[in-house]
């Protein structure tokens, strides 16, 4: 089997599973549907591993080539094709691994759901779309994957289509993402206009030729083309990777079943934006303005979204806000030109965040679909596997030394610190304070769920038990990389894993400093123990323990004392209310006005029916001329004759 066939089979295996389950699910049955989809994704995963072995270990050269030509016009080829290099391969392995875990987990989680088959079909379709996105070698296919994952996300958030909140959330998610895609498509348009191609390799090769050109978007204010492209493409990222202010859809997306919160809204789809910017590093390196913009947005998201996580009571929403905050971390790293660090954090985050979501799902099953942490507590003794794996996930999330998140998060903080962009000081402060916030909300959740008083009702308590093996197995399998994936820092960040894939301008070499100070994993951990980040994390952990374990009344007292701050956080800074009032209601009001004033009144009543009325009126008037009396006509003829003769005489 040639390597090209393998590349092609990787997405197609997942697609085949999705199509079989989607169209023929009725005949396959539940077991049949989950077998074909799991088989499909398993094939994708194994083949991805095969590619990874060839790429990472056997030193296979990157592959870039077309699959088929979508269309050709004016000599521009729009193609569907693959670019398989280290970045792609890493993403393929992460996506198919997490997807496979989620597939298995779903057997247990969705066991009693009438939409079982539909669900499997959707998540396999998602895997296909995501693979098409990361394997693409051009902007057109990237946009296809970009929107296709959005479609599946739409379908899955609205999976419980009877629930009003779910079908509101999925529409909101799609529309907010469309706002991002609006910028994205314009960015692609500028790329085509200046580079004359949509193929990555050709665009990157052409980049130096238009790096100095400027475009007047506002008359009299020339912008560097690269800045315009960079910011427009990043607007797409703000939608897909939920950066402020387009983040509003992600918390609501928790309306979807938990397995997809893990797969789509934590581990893979939302990181597509991070992947995209890393992929476009040869373009972004030309614009410090765009990089600074990215860094500021990322830093704001990282800190302020984390804060909201502290006041949430729904277990899934805490993790959702945590995801927002972590995506902010990755984005900040991108702004610091530390693309490899961002991708590294993307990978470790995919493991430990998927783990946390799935652990939360396990808790939710045990609690009979109760998601309010105020009615949990003390679950440790009932669910040991879930407890220990959740602990691993939490420690990785707060960046506890030795766990995967420690390596990636510390690298981000170091890289931002080393960045020379003018906004890097602010960003550094945000990501550093964010560490305290992260530890606080993470262990608040952890203590409220697993420790302390058992606050559930008696009926629920009596039924509490550990989840079945299809649920706990993925937890354990995800816990392993959540601990150990950090060791990959050596090749990925400080090594030359991304040589030839990610390009960094000499003046942006924040990561270089990291590499120069690199003295092995042990030294890095040791160094971390001295750093402020570690102590901030410990402070957060301790605060969580003190407030929620030792003095449970303290939290409420705090909320009362700082009522204003609390209210601001609970209202999520008012983004939702603002959007609803201004954009949603505003659009409807504008539409109603245009319709009534424009179409109905001005055009139809005044012009169209008005013209008809004028015609009728004219007919009425002229009718009086035709009286039928002979002497009227005779008189008119004489008048006319006099007039004509008079005119003749005068002229």
């Amino acid at each position, binding site marked *: 089997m040639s390597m090209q066939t393998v590349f092609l089979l990787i997405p197609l295996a997942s697609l085949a599973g999705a199509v079989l389950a989607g169209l023929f699910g009725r005949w396959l049955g539940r077991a049949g549907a989950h077998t074909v989809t799991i088989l499909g994704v398993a094939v994708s995963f194994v083949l991805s591993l095969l590619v990874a072995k060839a790429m990472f270990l056997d030193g296979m050269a990157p592959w870039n080539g077309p699959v088929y030509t979508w*269309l*050709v016009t*004016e000599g521009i080829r729009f193609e569907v094709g693959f670019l398989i290099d280290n970045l792609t391969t890493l993403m393929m392995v992460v996506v198919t691994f997490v997807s496979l875990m989620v597939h298995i987990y779903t057997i247990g989680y969705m066991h009693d759901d009438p939409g079982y088959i539909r669900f499997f079909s959707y998540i396999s379709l998602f895997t296909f779309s995501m693979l098409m996105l990361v394997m693409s070698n051009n902007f057109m296919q990237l946009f296809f994957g970009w*929107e296709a994952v959005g479609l599946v996300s739409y379908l899955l958030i609205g999976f419980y289509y009877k629930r009003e909140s779910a079908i509101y959330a999925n*529409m909101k998610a799609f529309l907010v993402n*469309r706002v991002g895609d609006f910028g994205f498509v314009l960015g692609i348009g500028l790329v085509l206009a200046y580079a004359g191609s949509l193929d990555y390799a050709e665009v990157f090769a052409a980049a130096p030729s238009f790096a100095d050109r400027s475009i007047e978007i506002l008359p009299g204010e020339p912008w560097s083309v690269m800045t315009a492209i960079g910011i427009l493409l990043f607007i797409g990222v703000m939608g897909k990777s939920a950066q402020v202010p387009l983040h509003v859809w992600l918390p609501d997306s928790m309306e979807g079943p938990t397995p997809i919160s893990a797969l789509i809204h934590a581990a893979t789809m939302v990181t597509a934006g991070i992947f995209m910017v890393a992929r476009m590093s040869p373009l972004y390196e030309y614009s410090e303005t765009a990089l600074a913009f990215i860094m500021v947005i990322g830093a704001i998201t990282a800190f302020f979204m984390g804060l909201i996580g502290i006041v949430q009571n729904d277990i899934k929403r805490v993790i959702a806000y945590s995801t927002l905050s972590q995506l902010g971390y990755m984005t900040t790293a991108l702004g610091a030109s530390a693309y490899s660090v961002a991708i590294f954090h993307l990978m470790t985050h995919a493991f430990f965040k998927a783990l946390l979501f799935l652990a939360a799902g396990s808790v939710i099953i045990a609690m009979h679909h109760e998601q309010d942490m105020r009615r949990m507590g003390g679950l440790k003794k009932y669910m040991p596997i879930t407890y220990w794996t959740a602990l691993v996930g939490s420690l990785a999330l707060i960046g506890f030394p030795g766990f995967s998140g420690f390596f990636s998060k510390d690298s981000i903080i170091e890289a931002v610190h080393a960045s020379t962009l003018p906004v890097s000081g602010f960003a550094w402060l945000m990501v550093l304070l964010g560490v305290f916030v992260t530890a606080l909300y993470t262990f608040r959740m952890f203590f409220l769920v697993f420790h302390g008083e058992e606050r559930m009702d008696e009926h629920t308590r009596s039924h509490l038990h550990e989840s079945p093996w299809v649920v706990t197995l993925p937890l354990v399998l995800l816990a392993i990389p959540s601990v150990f994936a950090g060791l990959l820092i050596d090749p990925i960040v400080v090594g030359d894993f991304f040589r030839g894939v990610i390009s960094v301008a000499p003046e942006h070499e924040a990561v270089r400093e990291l590499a120069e100070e690199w003295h092995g994993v042990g030294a890095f951990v040791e160094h971390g123990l001295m750093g402020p980040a570690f102590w901030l994390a410990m402070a957060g952990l301790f605060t969580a323990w003190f407030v929620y374990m030792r003095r449970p009344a303290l939290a409420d007292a705090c909320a009362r004392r700082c009522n204003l701050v609390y209210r601001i956080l609970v209202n999520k800074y008012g983004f939702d209310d603002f959007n609803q009032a201004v954009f949603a209601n505003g659009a409807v009001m504008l539409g109603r006005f245009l319709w009534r004033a424009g179409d109905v009144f001005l055009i139809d009543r005044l012009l169209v029916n008005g013209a008809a009325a004028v015609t009728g009126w004219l007919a009425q008037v002229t009718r009086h001329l035709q009286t039928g009396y002979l002497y009227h006509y005779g008189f008119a003829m004489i008048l006319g004759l006099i007039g004509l003769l008079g005119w003749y005489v005068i002229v």
Partner: protein
Amino acid sequence: MFADWPLLSLVIWTPIVGGVLVLLAGDRAPDGARRLALVVSLLTFLLSVPLWTEFDASTWRMQFEEFVPWVTTYNINYHLGVDGLSMPLILLTTFVTVLVVIAGWEVIQYRVAQYMAAFLIMEGIMVGVFAALDAMLFYIFFEAMLIPMYLVIGVWGGPRRVYASIKFFLYTFLGSVFMLVSLIWMYGQSGSFEILDLHKLPLGMTAQVLIFLSFLAAFAVKVPMWPVHTWLPDAHVEAPTGGSVILAAIMLKIGGYGFLRFSLPVTPDASAELTWLIVLMSLVAVVYIGFVALVQSDMKKLIAYSSIAHMGFVTLAFFIPFYILRNTGDTAGSTLAVQGGMVQMISHGFVSAALFLCVGVLYDRLHSREISTYGGVVNVMPVFAAFFVLFAMANTGLPGTSGFVGEFMVILASIKANFWIAFLAATTLIIGAAYTLWLVKRVVFGEVRSEKVAALDDLNGREFLILGLLALMVLAIGLWPAPLIHVMEVSIDHLIEHAMVSKL
């Protein structure tokens, strides 16, 4: 084997003669009328297939030409022929007509034979419009088309059918009268009604502007462009499902086709001069009409407004090349734009047909077009819901569906002309998604709204067949538009080359 067949005449006259036969057979045996209509429409479709398979995509010259002198005194000829612009539209016509005949199978119980006959005759006339190479012949087909559609709305329409049909007739008729005057004036100048001769006819600027405006009156009403669009929502609302499908899928395209066949090549300087007007009207259609669509409470009206917005992309695409030439000094990007407009027309033919058929499916069951009647349809009609969501996504321009291809190409091209034109055009990504998905949310998703909705039956075999065929087309064009682009490319290149050269 088709080399010496008069294919175009066959595709025009088979349905017209077949329609007359159906009419003569009458309503005594409605089943017979249905079957005969189906056979005729299938035969017509089969006859049109060689137009695609035998088409030579390497030349812009007219193919399958037929020439018979007709009114020799005025040099009017029965002259037919197709190029890459008209051929795909003819296939769209013959394909959609088959679906319309099947769609009316059980639904139409009143005057079946006349209903089927009206659609068959209309099919022949519409093919005639696309195939005519003689301006007078074009004009006759162009006007004749109104009669069967007027009857379809007036006889099988809803409660306000009289208002709607008269509005439709007067609006469109008024527009085309000016075109007739222009054609006769140009005949006076050139002594010919040959469209290709008119392309070469040298004209001064004043004459060009007047002719351009007269064509605009005819085609803008047909498309319809803002602000002469208000006949369309009324016509759609009152028309039976089949009428809406033909109206949206094909008749609107005749306006777009007219711009390419007449306005651009006959009056290139006036087109360049007045591009701002067309671009303005198109962008208003995309943005303004998008917001208007958002607040409609009638499903058909909503889709009608959505059609206007989508057609705004088409007219935008056809005139963008003049801006590209002015701003960049060369024509790179022009072919992309016009192809995008053409693909958008074909795609909209399938997507709007499918959406109107979906509304028809619901209307046949509950006899209501109000969005508020429905809700939670997915609970009882899952297969229907799947189709509806697919076509809705195509309507929002989701990649992988045909709706994406045209929009993407037009946005990419218009950014070369001006960033803000592309900006306003791209707002359709948001507004289009907003009105379409809100419709889906209120109709398809949610709890079952009423007992009536609870009693709905899912698609029957006939409906499944129609929507399935349309779904295949929508996905095929979305996943592999290359063949469609290929047949149009040389003709469009030639058109742009011609339209970019001044006649002054």
